[in-house]
């Protein structure tokens, strides 16, 4: 098993009502699967919200396998400015 931390921002934080969530996952779990879990947890509140994935504070364009200790964020549309 691996342990990863999901940081929650903006609409993800609002949907889950959490700043971060710790997950214990099987080896080989991908960012895609984790995103599905997050969307399930949000009970529809993230439907239609595009999420980009950041692993260890870098955008990751393709799905990857997670490693123990990774910090993941599912980034809703950003709004700087």
């Amino acid at each position: 098993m691996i342990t990863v931390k999901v940081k929650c921002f903006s609409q993800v934080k609002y949907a889950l009502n959490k700043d971060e969530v710790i997950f214990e996952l099987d080896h080989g779990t991908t960012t895609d699967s984790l995103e599905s879990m997050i969307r399930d947890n949000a009970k529809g509140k993230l439907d239609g919200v595009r999420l980009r994935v950041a692993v260890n504070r870098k955008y990751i364009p393709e799905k990857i396998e997670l490693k123990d200790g990774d910090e993941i964020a599912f980034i809703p549309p950003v709004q700087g400015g």
Partner: protein
Amino acid sequence: MVKVEIINGPLDLYLTDNNRTQDGAELVFNGRVRDTEHGNKITYLEYEHYDGMAKAELLQLADKTVKKFPINDLFCKHRIGKVNIGEISLHIIIWSKHRKEGLDAMSWFISELKNSVPIWKWAILEDGSRVPTECKD
């Protein structure tokens, strides 16, 4: 040269610089919090950022901008935390030899910033509720 800052609290603006004898154009953008968001009255905004990623993305974007456009320097400050209506949340200054490249670089930099830098707005509404500004909920 580039400089980027993420600041919790009011901004000091960068100073106009008369020692720049090679830079014919100095362009300043100030983004200010308006009193409505998507038509709803707000009392103020709170900017949330991904600590550890927002500044790095902003710096990377500034570097890309000075490589992509023939400009000399780009400095940028972005506020986080509570920002009152009318206050400046984003402050950018670009120095270039001619105006055109400065205007093009400014336009591109802001568009990309709004596309990639992990910063978000929470609106504090008149009833006191706190919502992500583009959340339909």
